[in-house]
Protein backbone atom coordinates (compact mmCIF):
# COMPACT_ATOMS: atom_id res chain seq x y z
CA UNK A 1 0.00 0.00 0.00
CA UNK A 2 1.29 3.35 -0.96
CA UNK A 3 1.19 5.60 2.07
CA UNK A 4 1.96 8.94 0.55
CA UNK A 5 3.00 12.35 1.75
CA UNK A 6 4.29 12.44 5.28
CA UNK A 7 3.44 15.53 7.30
CA UNK A 8 6.70 17.29 6.53
CA UNK A 9 5.44 18.02 3.04
CA UNK A 10 2.57 20.09 4.33
CA UNK A 11 4.33 23.40 3.93
CA UNK A 12 4.78 23.18 0.17
CA UNK A 13 6.87 26.07 -1.19
CA UNK A 14 4.09 28.27 -2.46
CA UNK A 15 2.00 28.32 0.72
CA UNK A 16 2.36 30.94 3.39
CA UNK A 17 4.62 29.30 5.93
CA UNK A 18 3.70 31.60 8.83
CA UNK A 19 0.34 29.99 9.64
CA UNK A 20 0.03 26.49 10.89
CA UNK A 21 -2.88 25.36 8.76
CA UNK A 22 -5.76 23.47 10.31
CA UNK A 23 -7.62 20.56 8.87
CA UNK A 24 -5.08 17.79 8.38
CA UNK A 25 -6.82 14.50 7.70
CA UNK A 26 -5.19 11.15 8.12
CA UNK A 27 -6.88 8.08 6.74
CA UNK A 28 -5.32 4.83 7.86
CA UNK A 29 -6.17 1.36 6.56
CA UNK A 30 -9.82 2.15 6.13
CA UNK A 31 -12.05 -0.67 4.90
CA UNK A 32 -15.75 -0.48 4.29
CA UNK A 33 -18.04 -3.37 3.47
CA UNK A 34 -21.67 -2.79 2.59
CA UNK A 35 -24.31 -5.39 3.17
CA UNK A 36 -27.24 -4.61 0.93
CA UNK A 37 -29.72 -7.46 0.45
CA UNK A 38 -27.34 -9.90 2.02
CA UNK A 39 -24.66 -9.45 -0.63
CA UNK A 40 -21.46 -8.13 0.85
CA UNK A 41 -19.88 -5.49 -1.33
CA UNK A 42 -16.46 -4.21 -0.50
CA UNK A 43 -16.44 -0.50 -1.33
CA UNK A 44 -13.13 0.53 0.21
CA UNK A 45 -10.28 -1.87 0.81
CA UNK A 46 -7.51 -0.90 3.18
CA UNK A 47 -7.08 2.63 1.88
CA UNK A 48 -4.64 5.04 3.51
CA UNK A 49 -3.76 8.62 2.73
CA UNK A 50 -2.49 11.66 4.54
CA UNK A 51 -3.85 15.08 3.72
CA UNK A 52 -2.00 18.05 5.11
CA UNK A 53 -3.80 21.08 6.52
CA UNK A 54 -4.66 23.65 3.85
CA UNK A 55 -4.04 21.23 1.03
CA UNK A 56 -6.24 20.75 -2.01
CA UNK A 57 -6.49 17.01 -2.34
CA UNK A 58 -8.16 15.56 -5.41
CA UNK A 59 -9.44 11.99 -5.49
CA UNK A 60 -9.79 10.59 -9.00
CA UNK A 61 -11.31 7.24 -9.90
CA UNK A 62 -13.96 5.56 -12.03
CA UNK A 63 -17.57 6.17 -11.03
CA UNK A 64 -19.00 3.81 -8.46
CA UNK A 65 -15.55 2.93 -7.20
CA UNK A 66 -16.11 3.87 -3.59
CA UNK A 67 -14.66 7.38 -3.48
CA UNK A 68 -17.88 8.74 -2.10
CA UNK A 69 -17.83 6.12 0.63
CA UNK A 70 -14.58 7.60 1.84
CA UNK A 71 -16.07 11.08 1.88
CA UNK A 72 -19.17 9.83 3.69
CA UNK A 73 -16.98 8.25 6.33
CA UNK A 74 -15.12 11.52 6.94
CA UNK A 75 -18.35 13.53 7.04
CA UNK A 76 -19.98 11.02 9.39
CA UNK A 77 -22.78 9.83 7.13
CA UNK A 78 -21.60 6.22 7.13
CA UNK A 79 -19.68 3.96 9.44
CA UNK A 80 -16.45 2.25 8.47
CA UNK A 81 -15.73 -1.43 8.94
CA UNK A 82 -12.13 -1.11 10.08
CA UNK A 83 -9.26 1.37 10.16
CA UNK A 84 -9.34 4.92 11.46
CA UNK A 85 -9.73 8.49 10.32
CA UNK A 86 -8.29 11.43 12.25
CA UNK A 87 -8.79 15.15 11.85
CA UNK A 88 -5.92 17.26 13.24
CA UNK A 89 -4.87 14.24 15.29
CA UNK A 90 -8.30 13.84 16.84
CA UNK A 91 -10.07 10.54 16.23
CA UNK A 92 -13.13 10.96 13.98
CA UNK A 93 -13.87 7.30 13.60
CA UNK A 94 -11.92 4.17 14.27
CA UNK A 95 -12.00 1.05 16.38
CA UNK A 96 -14.90 1.20 18.82
CA UNK A 97 -16.33 4.30 17.13
CA UNK A 98 -17.39 3.20 13.66
CA UNK A 99 -19.28 6.34 12.75
CA UNK A 100 -17.95 9.88 13.03
CA UNK A 101 -20.11 12.57 14.57
CA UNK A 102 -21.40 15.03 12.00
CA UNK A 103 -20.14 18.50 12.68
CA UNK A 104 -19.70 21.95 11.25
CA UNK A 105 -15.90 21.57 11.09
CA UNK A 106 -16.29 19.35 8.01
CA UNK A 107 -18.64 20.84 5.46
CA UNK A 108 -19.89 18.84 2.50
CA UNK A 109 -20.86 20.19 -0.92
CA UNK A 110 -22.97 17.59 -2.67
CA UNK A 111 -23.00 16.20 -6.16
CA UNK A 112 -26.50 17.34 -7.04
CA UNK A 113 -26.51 20.34 -4.78
CA UNK A 114 -28.30 20.33 -1.45
CA UNK A 115 -29.36 23.91 -0.94
CA UNK A 116 -32.76 23.71 0.71
CA UNK A 117 -35.12 24.56 -2.14
CA UNK A 118 -37.62 26.01 0.33
CA UNK A 119 -35.26 28.70 1.64
CA UNK A 120 -33.85 31.67 -0.24
CA UNK A 121 -30.12 31.72 -0.91
CA UNK A 122 -29.53 34.11 1.98
CA UNK A 123 -31.63 32.01 4.37
CA UNK A 124 -29.73 28.95 3.25
CA UNK A 125 -26.39 30.59 4.00
CA UNK A 126 -27.58 31.93 7.33
CA UNK A 127 -28.98 28.54 8.37
CA UNK A 128 -25.76 27.11 9.84
CA UNK A 129 -24.91 29.91 12.28
CA UNK A 130 -28.55 30.14 13.36
CA UNK A 131 -29.05 26.49 14.26
CA UNK A 132 -25.65 26.31 15.91
CA UNK A 133 -26.66 29.31 17.99
CA UNK A 134 -23.47 31.09 16.92
CA UNK A 135 -25.25 34.20 15.71
CA UNK A 136 -28.66 35.75 16.21
CA UNK A 137 -31.03 35.51 13.30
CA UNK A 138 -30.63 39.10 12.13
CA UNK A 139 -26.83 39.05 12.49
CA UNK A 140 -26.62 35.77 10.63
CA UNK A 141 -28.73 37.11 7.79
CA UNK A 142 -26.56 40.20 7.60
CA UNK A 143 -23.38 38.16 7.47
CA UNK A 144 -24.92 35.86 4.88
CA UNK A 145 -25.76 38.79 2.63
CA UNK A 146 -22.23 40.13 2.99
CA UNK A 147 -20.67 36.82 2.10
CA UNK A 148 -23.00 36.32 -0.85
CA UNK A 149 -22.13 39.78 -2.12
CA UNK A 150 -18.43 38.92 -1.83
CA UNK A 151 -19.07 35.85 -3.97
CA UNK A 152 -20.79 37.98 -6.60
CA UNK A 153 -24.26 36.78 -5.64
CA UNK A 154 -25.43 39.99 -3.98
CA UNK A 155 -28.50 40.56 -6.14
CA UNK A 156 -29.86 37.02 -6.04
CA UNK A 157 -29.81 36.59 -2.25
CA UNK A 158 -33.61 36.73 -2.08
CA UNK A 159 -34.17 34.17 -4.81
CA UNK A 160 -34.95 30.52 -4.24
CA UNK A 161 -32.37 27.97 -5.44
CA UNK A 162 -34.77 26.78 -8.13
CA UNK A 163 -34.73 30.23 -9.65
CA UNK A 164 -31.00 30.64 -10.23
CA UNK A 165 -28.63 28.80 -12.55
CA UNK A 166 -26.92 25.68 -11.31
CA UNK A 167 -23.60 27.53 -11.30
CA UNK A 168 -24.92 30.20 -8.99
CA UNK A 169 -26.55 27.63 -6.74
CA UNK A 170 -23.29 25.76 -6.40
CA UNK A 171 -21.40 28.93 -5.52
CA UNK A 172 -24.01 29.75 -2.91
CA UNK A 173 -23.61 26.25 -1.50
CA UNK A 174 -19.90 26.83 -1.05
CA UNK A 175 -20.66 30.12 0.68
CA UNK A 176 -23.09 28.25 2.95
CA UNK A 177 -20.26 25.92 3.89
CA UNK A 178 -17.66 28.64 4.41
CA UNK A 179 -19.79 30.80 6.69
CA UNK A 180 -19.30 28.14 9.36
CA UNK A 181 -15.52 28.54 9.16
CA UNK A 182 -14.89 24.81 8.61
CA UNK A 183 -11.53 23.11 8.84
CA UNK A 184 -12.23 20.93 5.84
CA UNK A 185 -14.37 21.33 2.74
CA UNK A 186 -15.55 18.01 1.33
CA UNK A 187 -16.69 18.26 -2.27
CA UNK A 188 -18.36 15.32 -3.98
CA UNK A 189 -18.15 15.88 -7.75
CA UNK A 190 -19.89 19.21 -7.31
CA UNK A 191 -19.51 20.25 -10.94
CA UNK A 192 -20.39 16.94 -12.53
CA UNK A 193 -23.59 17.99 -14.24
CA UNK A 194 -22.14 21.21 -15.65
CA UNK A 195 -20.72 21.72 -19.09
CA UNK A 196 -17.04 22.46 -19.54
CA UNK A 197 -17.49 26.19 -19.89
CA UNK A 198 -19.52 26.75 -16.75
CA UNK A 199 -17.14 24.41 -15.03
CA UNK A 200 -14.12 26.52 -15.93
CA UNK A 201 -15.79 29.54 -14.37
CA UNK A 202 -16.66 27.56 -11.26
CA UNK A 203 -13.04 26.43 -10.99
CA UNK A 204 -11.73 29.96 -11.04
CA UNK A 205 -14.23 30.97 -8.42
CA UNK A 206 -13.27 28.03 -6.19
CA UNK A 207 -9.55 28.76 -6.58
CA UNK A 208 -10.12 32.36 -5.67
CA UNK A 209 -12.01 31.26 -2.57
CA UNK A 210 -9.25 28.83 -1.65
CA UNK A 211 -6.52 31.43 -2.02
CA UNK A 212 -8.45 33.62 0.38
CA UNK A 213 -9.32 31.06 3.04
CA UNK A 214 -6.70 28.31 2.71
CA UNK A 215 -9.22 25.75 3.89
CA UNK A 216 -8.34 22.09 3.40
CA UNK A 217 -10.21 20.74 0.38
CA UNK A 218 -11.06 17.09 -0.18
CA UNK A 219 -12.41 16.98 -3.73
CA UNK A 220 -13.82 13.93 -5.50
CA UNK A 221 -13.96 13.99 -9.28
CA UNK A 222 -13.35 11.96 -12.35
CA UNK A 223 -12.50 14.87 -14.52
CA UNK A 224 -8.72 14.81 -14.90
CA UNK A 225 -8.28 18.39 -16.03
CA UNK A 226 -10.26 19.57 -13.08
CA UNK A 227 -8.13 17.46 -10.78
CA UNK A 228 -4.83 18.85 -12.03
CA UNK A 229 -6.03 22.40 -12.38
CA UNK A 230 -7.34 22.62 -8.83
CA UNK A 231 -5.23 20.21 -6.82
CA UNK A 232 -1.98 20.19 -4.90
CA UNK A 233 -2.09 16.42 -4.96
CA UNK A 234 -4.03 14.05 -7.16
CA UNK A 235 -4.77 10.66 -5.64
CA UNK A 236 -5.79 8.10 -8.24
CA UNK A 237 -7.83 5.24 -6.81
CA UNK A 238 -8.65 1.87 -8.30
CA UNK A 239 -12.05 0.63 -9.31
CA UNK A 240 -14.11 -1.16 -6.63
CA UNK A 241 -12.87 -1.93 -4.06
CA UNK A 242 -11.28 1.48 -3.76
CA UNK A 243 -7.57 1.45 -3.04
CA UNK A 244 -4.93 4.11 -3.55
CA UNK A 245 -3.17 3.45 -6.84
CA UNK A 246 -0.95 6.44 -7.42
CA UNK A 247 -0.36 9.94 -6.10
CA UNK A 248 0.69 12.75 -8.40
CA UNK A 249 2.06 15.98 -6.95
CA UNK A 250 0.96 19.07 -8.82
CA UNK A 251 3.44 21.90 -8.28
CA UNK A 252 1.94 24.53 -10.51
CA UNK A 253 2.28 27.79 -8.58
CA UNK A 254 -0.75 29.54 -7.17
CA UNK A 255 -2.70 31.69 -7.93
CA UNK A 256 -3.58 29.74 -11.08
CA UNK A 257 -5.57 30.96 -14.05
CA UNK A 258 -7.14 28.86 -16.75
CA UNK A 259 -4.23 29.77 -19.02
CA UNK A 260 -2.05 27.21 -17.21
CA UNK A 261 -4.19 24.52 -18.79
CA UNK A 262 -2.37 24.99 -22.05
CA UNK A 263 1.10 25.01 -20.49
CA UNK A 264 3.69 22.30 -21.14
CA UNK A 265 3.83 21.36 -17.45
CA UNK A 266 0.08 20.79 -17.38
CA UNK A 267 0.27 18.56 -20.43
CA UNK A 268 2.95 16.39 -18.91
CA UNK A 269 0.90 15.99 -15.74
CA UNK A 270 -2.20 15.19 -17.81
CA UNK A 271 -0.40 12.44 -19.59
CA UNK A 272 0.86 10.95 -16.35
CA UNK A 273 -2.57 10.92 -14.75
CA UNK A 274 -4.37 9.85 -17.90
CA UNK A 275 -2.24 6.75 -18.25
CA UNK A 276 -3.08 5.55 -14.75
CA UNK A 277 -6.77 6.39 -14.99
CA UNK A 278 -7.53 5.04 -18.42
CA UNK A 279 -6.54 1.57 -17.34
CA UNK A 280 -8.90 1.75 -14.36
CA UNK A 281 -11.69 3.15 -16.49
CA UNK A 282 -11.54 0.21 -18.85
CA UNK A 283 -11.45 -2.19 -15.93
CA UNK A 284 -14.51 -0.55 -14.39
CA UNK A 285 -16.28 -0.53 -17.72
CA UNK A 286 -15.69 -4.22 -18.27
CA UNK A 287 -16.78 -5.03 -14.74
CA UNK A 288 -19.94 -3.04 -15.35
CA UNK A 289 -20.77 -4.93 -18.52
CA UNK A 290 -20.04 -8.20 -16.80
CA UNK A 291 -22.40 -7.37 -13.98
CA UNK A 292 -25.20 -6.57 -16.38
CA UNK A 293 -24.70 -9.73 -18.39
Amino acid at each position, binding site marked *: MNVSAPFSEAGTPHKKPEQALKGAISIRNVTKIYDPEGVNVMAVDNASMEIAGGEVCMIVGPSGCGKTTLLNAIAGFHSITSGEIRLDGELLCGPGKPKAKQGADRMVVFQHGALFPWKTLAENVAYGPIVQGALSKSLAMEKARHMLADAGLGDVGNKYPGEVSSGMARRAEIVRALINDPKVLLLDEPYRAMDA*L*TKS*IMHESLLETYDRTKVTIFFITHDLEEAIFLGDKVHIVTTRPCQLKKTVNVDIPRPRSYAVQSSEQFRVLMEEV*NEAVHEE*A*IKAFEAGERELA
Partner: protein
Amino acid sequence: MQQENSKGAAAASKDYAIGKSKVELRNVSKSYGEEWDEQTVIEDISFELTPGDLTVVVGPSGCGKSTLVNLIAGFERPDSGEILLDGKRVTGPGKDRMVVFQETALMPWQTTYENVVFGPKLRGDMRGKELKDEAERLLAKVGLYEFMHKYPLQLSGGMQRRAELARALINKPSILIMDEPFRGLDAMSRGLMQEFFLRLFEENHRTNLFVTSEIDEAIFLADRLVILSNRPAQVRKVIDIRLPRPRHYSMLNSQEAYDYKREAMSILHDEAMRSFSSTGVSSDFTENYTAQPNA
Protein backbone atom coordinates in the same frame (compact mmCIF):
# COMPACT_ATOMS: atom_id res chain seq x y z
CA MET B 1 -35.18 2.07 -49.90
CA GLN B 2 -34.49 2.64 -53.56
CA GLN B 3 -37.61 4.55 -54.43
CA GLU B 4 -37.07 6.96 -51.59
CA ASN B 5 -33.51 7.56 -52.50
CA SER B 6 -34.33 8.27 -56.11
CA LYS B 7 -36.07 11.43 -54.96
CA GLY B 8 -32.66 12.86 -54.07
CA ALA B 9 -30.45 14.61 -56.57
CA ALA B 10 -29.72 12.06 -59.26
CA ALA B 11 -26.06 12.90 -59.59
CA ALA B 12 -25.39 12.58 -55.90
CA SER B 13 -27.41 9.41 -55.49
CA LYS B 14 -24.37 7.20 -55.17
CA ASP B 15 -22.87 9.27 -52.41
CA TYR B 16 -26.25 9.70 -50.86
CA ALA B 17 -26.64 6.00 -50.29
CA ILE B 18 -23.59 5.81 -48.11
CA GLY B 19 -24.48 8.92 -46.17
CA LYS B 20 -22.59 11.76 -47.73
CA SER B 21 -25.10 14.50 -48.02
CA LYS B 22 -24.55 18.18 -47.72
CA VAL B 23 -26.54 20.48 -45.50
CA GLU B 24 -26.53 24.23 -45.91
CA LEU B 25 -27.94 26.73 -43.46
CA ARG B 26 -28.64 30.15 -44.93
CA ASN B 27 -29.40 33.10 -42.65
CA VAL B 28 -31.45 30.99 -40.26
CA SER B 29 -33.16 32.77 -37.35
CA LYS B 30 -35.55 31.55 -34.68
CA SER B 31 -37.14 33.17 -31.65
CA TYR B 32 -39.57 32.20 -28.92
CA GLY B 33 -41.65 33.91 -26.31
CA GLU B 34 -44.35 36.50 -25.95
CA GLU B 35 -44.44 39.81 -27.78
CA TRP B 36 -42.83 41.82 -25.01
CA ASP B 37 -40.46 39.08 -24.01
CA GLU B 38 -39.24 37.79 -27.31
CA GLN B 39 -36.07 35.75 -27.00
CA THR B 40 -34.07 35.42 -30.17
CA VAL B 41 -32.45 32.05 -29.80
CA ILE B 42 -30.76 31.76 -33.16
CA GLU B 43 -29.84 34.78 -35.20
CA ASP B 44 -28.77 34.78 -38.80
CA ILE B 45 -26.72 31.61 -38.77
CA SER B 46 -25.12 30.40 -41.98
CA PHE B 47 -22.76 27.47 -42.28
CA GLU B 48 -22.69 24.16 -44.00
CA LEU B 49 -22.11 20.54 -43.16
CA THR B 50 -19.62 19.38 -45.75
CA PRO B 51 -20.11 15.87 -47.14
CA GLY B 52 -18.27 13.15 -45.31
CA ASP B 53 -17.06 15.45 -42.54
CA LEU B 54 -17.72 15.46 -38.85
CA THR B 55 -18.80 18.99 -38.02
CA VAL B 56 -18.92 19.81 -34.33
CA VAL B 57 -20.92 22.74 -33.00
CA VAL B 58 -19.81 24.07 -29.61
CA GLY B 59 -21.31 26.83 -27.56
CA PRO B 60 -22.13 27.76 -23.97
CA SER B 61 -25.02 25.84 -22.45
CA GLY B 62 -28.43 27.29 -23.20
CA CYS B 63 -27.16 29.12 -26.26
CA GLY B 64 -29.61 27.50 -28.64
CA LYS B 65 -27.73 24.47 -29.85
CA SER B 66 -30.70 22.17 -29.28
CA THR B 67 -32.89 24.53 -31.26
CA LEU B 68 -30.41 24.30 -34.10
CA VAL B 69 -30.69 20.53 -34.02
CA ASN B 70 -34.49 20.73 -34.02
CA LEU B 71 -34.38 23.02 -37.04
CA ILE B 72 -32.08 20.81 -39.09
CA ALA B 73 -33.97 17.68 -38.12
CA GLY B 74 -37.18 19.43 -39.18
CA PHE B 75 -39.00 19.27 -35.84
CA GLU B 76 -39.30 23.05 -35.95
CA ARG B 77 -39.34 25.63 -38.76
CA PRO B 78 -37.02 28.62 -38.83
CA ASP B 79 -38.63 32.08 -38.58
CA SER B 80 -36.51 33.23 -41.48
CA GLY B 81 -33.78 31.80 -43.69
CA GLU B 82 -33.66 28.31 -45.09
CA ILE B 83 -32.03 24.96 -44.52
CA LEU B 84 -31.10 22.93 -47.58
CA LEU B 85 -30.37 19.21 -47.66
CA ASP B 86 -28.60 18.33 -50.90
CA GLY B 87 -30.14 21.46 -52.40
CA LYS B 88 -33.66 20.65 -51.23
CA ARG B 89 -35.40 22.69 -48.56
CA VAL B 90 -36.04 20.94 -45.26
CA THR B 91 -39.73 21.06 -44.38
CA GLY B 92 -40.17 18.33 -41.82
CA PRO B 93 -38.56 15.35 -40.15
CA GLY B 94 -37.41 12.51 -42.34
CA LYS B 95 -35.47 9.29 -42.14
CA ASP B 96 -32.59 10.82 -44.08
CA ARG B 97 -31.68 12.80 -40.95
CA MET B 98 -31.38 10.70 -37.83
CA VAL B 99 -31.09 12.38 -34.44
CA VAL B 100 -29.40 10.89 -31.40
CA PHE B 101 -30.91 12.83 -28.53
CA GLN B 102 -29.55 14.20 -25.29
CA GLU B 103 -29.79 11.66 -22.51
CA THR B 104 -31.59 8.91 -24.40
CA ALA B 105 -34.79 8.54 -26.38
CA LEU B 106 -34.89 4.76 -26.60
CA MET B 107 -38.47 3.74 -26.00
CA PRO B 108 -38.53 2.08 -22.60
CA TRP B 109 -41.40 -0.22 -23.52
CA GLN B 110 -39.46 -1.97 -26.27
CA THR B 111 -36.43 -4.22 -25.97
CA THR B 112 -33.18 -3.03 -27.46
CA TYR B 113 -33.76 -5.19 -30.53
CA GLU B 114 -37.30 -3.89 -31.00
CA ASN B 115 -36.00 -0.36 -30.68
CA VAL B 116 -33.41 -0.95 -33.38
CA VAL B 117 -35.84 -2.47 -35.89
CA PHE B 118 -38.49 0.16 -35.10
CA GLY B 119 -37.83 2.40 -38.11
CA PRO B 120 -37.48 -0.18 -40.93
CA LYS B 121 -40.45 -2.10 -39.58
CA LEU B 122 -42.67 0.98 -39.61
CA ARG B 123 -41.77 1.85 -43.15
CA GLY B 124 -41.70 -1.77 -44.24
CA ASP B 125 -38.62 -1.24 -46.38
CA MET B 126 -36.76 -4.17 -44.91
CA ARG B 127 -38.32 -7.23 -43.41
CA GLY B 128 -37.94 -10.78 -42.25
CA LYS B 129 -34.50 -12.33 -42.31
CA GLU B 130 -32.88 -9.37 -43.99
CA LEU B 131 -33.98 -7.01 -41.22
CA LYS B 132 -33.05 -9.45 -38.49
CA ASP B 133 -29.58 -9.99 -39.93
CA GLU B 134 -28.97 -6.30 -40.38
CA ALA B 135 -30.15 -5.47 -36.86
CA GLU B 136 -28.04 -8.20 -35.37
CA ARG B 137 -25.02 -7.09 -37.36
CA LEU B 138 -25.40 -3.53 -36.10
CA LEU B 139 -26.01 -4.63 -32.53
CA ALA B 140 -22.92 -6.78 -32.65
CA LYS B 141 -21.00 -3.85 -34.03
CA VAL B 142 -21.94 -1.65 -31.10
CA GLY B 143 -21.20 -4.53 -28.74
CA LEU B 144 -24.75 -5.17 -27.63
CA TYR B 145 -25.41 -8.52 -29.28
CA GLU B 146 -25.89 -10.30 -25.96
CA PHE B 147 -28.07 -7.51 -24.62
CA MET B 148 -30.51 -7.19 -27.47
CA HIS B 149 -33.45 -8.70 -25.60
CA LYS B 150 -33.00 -6.48 -22.57
CA TYR B 151 -35.04 -3.37 -21.99
CA PRO B 152 -33.22 -0.03 -22.28
CA LEU B 153 -33.58 0.68 -18.56
CA GLN B 154 -31.62 -2.48 -17.83
CA LEU B 155 -28.61 -1.16 -19.74
CA SER B 156 -25.93 1.19 -18.47
CA GLY B 157 -25.78 4.77 -19.74
CA GLY B 158 -23.01 4.03 -22.23
CA MET B 159 -24.83 0.99 -23.60
CA GLN B 160 -27.99 3.02 -24.09
CA ARG B 161 -26.11 5.53 -26.20
CA ARG B 162 -24.64 2.75 -28.31
CA ALA B 163 -28.06 1.17 -28.78
CA GLU B 164 -29.34 4.51 -29.91
CA LEU B 165 -26.52 4.79 -32.43
CA ALA B 166 -27.49 1.40 -33.82
CA ARG B 167 -31.12 2.48 -34.02
CA ALA B 168 -30.11 5.53 -36.02
CA LEU B 169 -27.69 3.71 -38.32
CA ILE B 170 -30.10 0.98 -39.41
CA ASN B 171 -32.16 3.67 -41.16
CA LYS B 172 -29.15 4.43 -43.38
CA PRO B 173 -29.43 8.17 -42.82
CA SER B 174 -27.65 10.51 -45.16
CA ILE B 175 -26.62 12.56 -42.19
CA LEU B 176 -26.41 11.77 -38.51
CA ILE B 177 -27.23 14.49 -35.98
CA MET B 178 -26.02 14.03 -32.43
CA ASP B 179 -27.32 16.43 -29.79
CA GLU B 180 -24.94 16.27 -26.83
CA PRO B 181 -25.26 12.50 -26.94
CA PHE B 182 -22.79 11.81 -24.16
CA ARG B 183 -24.13 14.37 -21.73
CA GLY B 184 -24.88 12.87 -18.38
CA LEU B 185 -22.27 10.14 -18.72
CA ASP B 186 -19.37 10.36 -16.31
CA ALA B 187 -16.09 11.62 -17.67
CA MET B 188 -14.60 8.17 -18.06
CA SER B 189 -17.47 6.40 -19.83
CA ARG B 190 -17.62 9.50 -21.91
CA GLY B 191 -14.02 9.12 -23.03
CA LEU B 192 -14.65 5.51 -23.97
CA MET B 193 -17.81 6.42 -25.87
CA GLN B 194 -15.95 9.11 -27.79
CA GLU B 195 -13.35 6.61 -28.93
CA PHE B 196 -16.05 4.14 -29.86
CA PHE B 197 -17.94 6.72 -31.83
CA LEU B 198 -14.81 7.85 -33.65
CA ARG B 199 -14.07 4.33 -34.81
CA LEU B 200 -17.61 4.05 -36.10
CA PHE B 201 -17.31 7.36 -37.92
CA GLU B 202 -13.91 6.65 -39.38
CA GLU B 203 -15.26 3.47 -40.96
CA ASN B 204 -17.36 5.22 -43.58
CA HIS B 205 -17.19 8.97 -42.98
CA ARG B 206 -20.89 9.69 -42.92
CA THR B 207 -21.80 13.37 -42.86
CA ASN B 208 -22.22 14.13 -39.21
CA LEU B 209 -23.34 17.00 -37.04
CA PHE B 210 -22.24 16.71 -33.45
CA VAL B 211 -23.40 19.23 -30.87
CA THR B 212 -21.59 19.55 -27.57
CA SER B 213 -20.49 22.00 -24.94
CA GLU B 214 -17.24 20.19 -24.11
CA ILE B 215 -14.23 21.61 -25.91
CA ASP B 216 -12.04 18.55 -25.48
CA GLU B 217 -14.72 16.33 -26.93
CA ALA B 218 -15.17 18.76 -29.81
CA ILE B 219 -11.51 18.91 -30.73
CA PHE B 220 -11.03 15.18 -30.33
CA LEU B 221 -13.85 14.35 -32.74
CA ALA B 222 -14.10 17.20 -35.21
CA ASP B 223 -13.05 17.81 -38.75
CA ARG B 224 -14.55 21.26 -38.47
CA LEU B 225 -15.40 23.16 -35.37
CA VAL B 226 -18.20 25.74 -35.44
CA ILE B 227 -18.14 27.96 -32.38
CA LEU B 228 -21.41 29.63 -31.44
CA SER B 229 -21.81 32.75 -29.37
CA ASN B 230 -23.92 33.14 -26.28
CA ARG B 231 -27.64 33.57 -26.95
CA PRO B 232 -28.76 34.67 -29.47
CA ALA B 233 -26.56 32.11 -31.16
CA GLN B 234 -24.40 33.36 -33.99
CA VAL B 235 -21.37 31.74 -35.59
CA ARG B 236 -18.31 33.22 -33.90
CA LYS B 237 -15.67 31.21 -35.69
CA VAL B 238 -15.15 28.11 -37.81
CA ILE B 239 -11.92 26.22 -37.19
CA ASP B 240 -10.68 23.32 -39.32
CA ILE B 241 -9.16 20.69 -37.10
CA ARG B 242 -6.32 18.95 -38.91
CA LEU B 243 -5.44 16.27 -36.40
CA PRO B 244 -4.67 13.06 -38.31
CA ARG B 245 -7.15 10.20 -38.47
CA PRO B 246 -7.57 7.59 -37.09
CA ARG B 247 -7.41 9.42 -33.81
CA HIS B 248 -6.30 8.21 -30.45
CA TYR B 249 -7.02 9.73 -27.07
CA SER B 250 -3.35 10.52 -26.53
CA MET B 251 -3.55 12.98 -29.42
CA LEU B 252 -5.48 15.28 -27.13
CA ASN B 253 -2.21 15.87 -25.35
CA SER B 254 -0.37 16.94 -28.50
CA GLN B 255 0.82 20.51 -28.95
CA GLU B 256 -1.46 20.87 -31.96
CA ALA B 257 -4.55 19.96 -29.97
CA TYR B 258 -3.53 22.38 -27.27
CA ASP B 259 -3.22 25.18 -29.79
CA TYR B 260 -6.71 24.46 -31.08
CA LYS B 261 -7.97 24.32 -27.58
CA ARG B 262 -6.42 27.63 -26.62
CA GLU B 263 -7.94 29.27 -29.64
CA ALA B 264 -11.41 27.86 -29.01
CA MET B 265 -11.22 28.43 -25.29
CA SER B 266 -10.34 32.10 -25.60
CA ILE B 267 -13.52 32.70 -27.61
CA LEU B 268 -15.74 30.45 -25.57
CA HIS B 269 -14.56 31.57 -22.19
CA ASP B 270 -15.69 35.12 -22.93
CA GLU B 271 -19.02 33.87 -24.19
CA ALA B 272 -19.56 31.62 -21.18
CA MET B 273 -18.61 34.43 -18.82
CA ARG B 274 -21.12 36.69 -20.56
CA SER B 275 -23.90 34.14 -20.33
CA PHE B 276 -23.05 33.37 -16.74
CA SER B 277 -23.01 36.91 -15.40
CA SER B 278 -25.85 38.29 -17.49
CA THR B 279 -28.61 35.79 -16.81
CA GLY B 280 -30.59 35.94 -13.66
CA VAL B 281 -32.64 33.05 -14.95
CA SER B 282 -30.91 29.73 -14.98
CA SER B 283 -29.64 28.74 -18.36
CA ASP B 284 -30.88 25.26 -17.54
CA PHE B 285 -34.33 26.72 -17.61
CA THR B 286 -34.05 28.17 -21.08
CA GLU B 287 -32.83 24.84 -22.28
CA ASN B 288 -35.86 23.07 -20.89
CA TYR B 289 -38.11 25.71 -22.26
CA THR B 290 -36.86 25.41 -25.79
CA ALA B 291 -36.62 21.65 -25.67
CA GLN B 292 -40.33 21.14 -25.13
CA PRO B 293 -42.23 23.88 -26.88
CA ASN B 294 -45.32 21.76 -27.42
CA ALA B 295 -45.36 20.04 -24.06
